[in-house]
């Protein structure tokens, strides 16, 4: 059994935010806050930068748009030319609705895939899920901050002291 991380339970969102600010300022890097609902301002309190998922979305969108335009041009104006309604063989106007839909489709695929990749999902097991206190609290009415032992700044005594001073009533070591 090796230790996964130190878990601190907080009673209100405000306490959790203030604790997160202290942990952020202390310079920890491998830690997270688990709450039953999204807490506004938490990303700023944790010092999280803007998510990189947007880049996956953008790339998906660009791919979708160019695929749509190229596909319609290839099929109607190059590979099998066919006149429909006296319209030109290719025009960005009639190609736009389909390319636009492909843009949205592939952009949303990009978001989903990007989110999975960046979160390292899918994942079958997580050490925190074995902890009854964690599972009952984080999905109901507790706000739980976990600092991993893998963090370079992690020190059992110091980290515990920091979490106590942040106002946590319950601190325990989670085993893997």
């Amino acid at each position, binding site marked *: 059994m090796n230790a996964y991380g130190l878990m601190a339970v907080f009673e209100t969102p*405000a306490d959790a935010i203030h604790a997160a600010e202290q942990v952020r300022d202390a310079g920890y890097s491998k830690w997270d806050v688990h709450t039953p609902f999204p807490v506004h301002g938490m990303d700023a309190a944790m010092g999280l930068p*803007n998510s990189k998922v*947007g880049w996956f979305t*953008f790339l998906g969108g660009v791919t979708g748009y160019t695929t749509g335009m190229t596909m319609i041009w290839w099929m109607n104006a190059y590979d099998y030319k066919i006149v429909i309604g*006296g319209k030109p063989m290719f025009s960005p*106007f*009639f190609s*736009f*609705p389909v390319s636009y839909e492909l843009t949205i489709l592939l952009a949303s695929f990009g978001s989903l895939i990007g989110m999975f990749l960046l979160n390292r999902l899918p994942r079958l097991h997580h050490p925190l899920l074995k902890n009854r206190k964690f599972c009952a609290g984080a999905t109901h009415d507790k706000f739980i901050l976990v600092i991993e032992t893998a963090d370079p700044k992690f020190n059992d005594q110091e980290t515990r002291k920091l979490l106590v001073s942040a106002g946590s009533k319950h601190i325990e070591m989670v085993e893997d």
Partner: protein
Amino acid sequence: MTTSAINLISGLGRWSRVAAVVVAFAAAALLGSRLTAAEHAEPVKGAAKTEAKAEHHAEAAHAGHDHAAGECANCGHDEPSELKKFGYAYLTAYMFCLSFCLGALFLVILNHLFDAQWMLPIRRFLEHLACQLCPTMLILWIPIGALAKHIFPWMSPEMQAHPDHALLAKFPLFTPTAFYVISGLIFVVWYVVAHGLREASLAQDKDGAAIHTRTMRRYAAAGIFCFAFSLTGAAIFWMKALSHQFFSTMYGVVYFAGSVWVTLITTYWLLLYFRNRGDLKDVTRQITFHDCGVLFFAFTVFYAYVHFSQYFLIWNAAVPEETFWYVAREKGSWWWVGQLIIFGHFWFPFLMLLPIHRKLNIGFMSTMAGWAWVCHYMDLQFNIGPVLYPDGLHLGIYDVLSLGGLLAILIFRFNSAFNAHPPYPQRDPRVAEAMGVYVEPASTNKAAH
């Protein structure tokens, strides 16, 4: 003192850059219109007829419509009269100024419909801007009403005496009486909604009663319908009616989208200005700018969406009653104005605003405000100008004087209204929330622990 001087200089630097772009564009447009004027020396009647034939539709079936004749009555074969030139320049400037007031009214209504908290810092100055719809914009409308016979081809005595099929089909809506009655009604609607909302808001400053919030919600709920109909009416009667043969159910929406778009970036700039001046220092947070920028971004896409829809349906159906409108706008330097709308009004802001942090870049967004003004003005020129100048964009002294004069009056009236009242809703139920202060609900009684 020093910092404000520096702010002013850096602001001037930015604005002079924007001004340089405007001047360069105007010069290019004037040059372009000269060149194309020489190119398109042939009579307009001939040109319009050629297009009609190019549509591959049986001429005979549409003989009753005779667009060529209709268009020609608008423009004439020779140089338009000075009164006409002034009328068109004034109308363009008027619709430009009207955009801000209508956009402001929409945003105030939106605030109440969604019970939004983030809009609180910008709500008061938008209320003042919306109240300029009546009486300020009503008084400024009088020249349009007086010159209507010169501006709107369908109102000319010869067209009224011998109406074409398109005009007959639109009787009794397109008669001078209906034009003035409906225009008057539009201003009444704007007066009631805009002033109703501001009065309740100012009353709440004094007593802080929740009843005023409910009053504003009622005004907003009914007002959004009145707003939609009145704005569409204004766009159709004062702008689309220039080519009375044209049909488009999207027309009002396109004007609405452009108006709210330009108002949002102006709101961003005004928020910055009033924050730096100190009026809105207490309520303005970074998130306010972010949200304003996000909504501007949304309307960048929305404008492109509705304008493309209008264009696409007309292009796809290829019915001469509709296509003539865009065909006229692909002539001469109007082609380049159209390109500016596609690339300057949509692609440039769209791609630039995709990264989230760009919406917080004050320098970029201020420059964008100037750029949006240019694009929106050019959009209105694109709508209004080709009826009088089929050969290309004309910008003259009348345009400069009308725009400068109307903007000066609007800014003066807005500024005196803003200075006469508190800068933001003082006792709105959401004021603490907007400031980022958490107030415990009185009922839970948790404040003790």
